[in-house]
């Protein structure tokens, strides 16, 4: 790592006045927030609140129209997406995103390989030491070890989401960004996923975007509420629950 990064500070990720416009539409307006290390922070809000846009800015999918994103003190506002994994940030997507025609094991192995070899066209990849073993260990962690020989597309929805987590962990990231990790899951699958997220958060920082508020309140250390592209409130789950504005725009509705 470069010397300018700070891997010990309390704040792992910071956005300063970030906005995002799509044409004339303002998806996000001037959001400043700090994310603490080794905590689970959830970003919640009703549909269209700008959660996914904010997530995409945090994960480098596209740059903000204005404002700054800093990771461990380093300005990452305009860093290319593929560099994020190498800095220590991994993400999972809202829509299931695996390599469908590769085996479950190869999905994770290729994720691990990115940190060992990316452009070697000559040596046999079977000779890269330890990747298959590491892949199998990660698959065991996310509960997919017995599925390792299956093609990723043959896995059930919940299993594919778990595989995505496994792939994100392949980067051995200090920060894991998860975009609606339980979208489309059955209650049972959701419970398994939540347990997995809590397990991950023991060793790394987790930032979570979630539509279902109830779900994240129990596990989050901190909650950010977005509404119409604005940061409506932030604080501990209890503080957020008691916030009048939040109650009005979010909790007043039938709880999801």
């Amino acid at each position: 790592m470069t010397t300018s990064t700070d891997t010990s500070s309390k704040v792992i990720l910071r956005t300063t006045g970030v906005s995002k416009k799509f044409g004339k539409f303002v998806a996000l307006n001037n959001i400043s927030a700090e994310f603490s290390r080794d905590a689970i922070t959830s970003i919640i809000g009703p549909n269209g609140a700008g959660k996914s846009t904010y997530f995409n800015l945090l994960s480098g999918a596209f740059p903000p129209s204005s404002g700054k994103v800093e990771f461990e003190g380093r300005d990452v506002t305009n860093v290319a997406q593929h560099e994020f994994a190498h800095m220590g940030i991994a993400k999972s997507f809202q829509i299931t995103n695996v390599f469908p025609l590769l085996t479950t094991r190869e999905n994770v192995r290729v994720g691990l390989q990115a940190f060992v070899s990316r452009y070697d066209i000559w040596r046999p990849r079977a000779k890269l030491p330890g990747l298959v073993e590491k892949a199998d260990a990660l698959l065991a962690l996310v509960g997919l070890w017995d599925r390792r020989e299956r093609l990723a597309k043959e896995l059930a929805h919940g299993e594919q989401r778990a595989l995505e987590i496994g792939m994100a962990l392949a980067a051995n990231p200090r920060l894991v960004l998860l975009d609606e990790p339980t979208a489309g899951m059955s209650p049972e699958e959701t419970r398994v996923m939540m347990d997995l997220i809590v397990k991950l958060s023991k060793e790394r920082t987790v930032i979570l975007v979630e539509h279902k508020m109830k779900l994240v309140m129990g596990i989050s250390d901190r909650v950010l509420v977005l509404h119409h592209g604005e940061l409506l409130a932030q604080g501990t789950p209890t503080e957020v629950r008691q916030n009048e504005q939040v109650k009005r725009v979010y909790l007043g509705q039938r709880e999801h």
Partner: protein
Amino acid sequence: MNELSQTLTQPSVASAGWFDFAKRHRAILASIFVLVFPLVMPFTALAVNILIYGLFAVGFNLLFGYLGLLSFGHAALFGTGAYLCGIAIVHFGWSWYAAIVMGILGGAVMAAGIGALAIRTRGIYFAMVTMALSQCVFYLFYQAVDWTGGENGLRGINVRTIDILGLKLDFINPLTRYYVIAAFVILALFVLSRILASPFGAVIEAVRENEARARASGYDVTRTRLITFILSGAFCGLAGALMALHLSIVPIEILHIETSGMVVMMSLLGGMGTFFGPFVGAAVFLLLENLVSIWTVHWQLIVGAVFVVCVLFFPAGIWGTILKRINK
């Protein structure tokens, strides 16, 4: 944890033994086929054609089948290889092997140029940009009459004997010619097989399967694409150079859009994304062309019909379908 480490050390699930064997030794098996091939063919000149177009299709398939990018301008890479090999011999009096190296480099450099412009586009746009650029290459060679002979083609690539380590081989003899060219094709197949089995080979497939995921995993998708395009260009450049030696002229038609279309058809016919499929496709295409044209001048009608039937009923291609059946 003990239970886990125990299961981890168990051998992975046993799969169809000899199918795996064939996959692991695909380059050797393909080479054996290439060596026996002229003995079962009606005439050797056709076998040489199939060999060279087979290599062209294999090179094209690296981009199309493995990386998932459909180029409609691969004639430019094939043609550049042929012309540069020919020019090196005709205008500079280079030896045949130096001319072949020139052809490979020519294909690769042309691919780098076309790739640099086209690689950021996707799908139909990529196909159109590569097609347009290959038309530019066509006119470039067409207009450079002093170098390329323009519409008459580049003539006078007379390689009569091939010297290898003091051994003089008669390049006029069809069978000798076949095996000289086969030596290069076999070498190319081994190199390709090695690339596909390399770490980079895994990245190629990952990018094909899911670009966004590959990027999030830490791979530079654009760079991966460009490198693959250049590698594909090198294989196609070699095929072109061998074609120039084989025909002893380079016809301007080699750069036609038809050549680009033909290699797409060959790959689809044989099976995109399989190691040996493009070769099978080239063989079926050229055999059909030769056999049907004995009977009628409208051979394209028949080949077209066969192509449509294949695409409709065997979308995995002839070889791809065979592999699927065996693997079940």
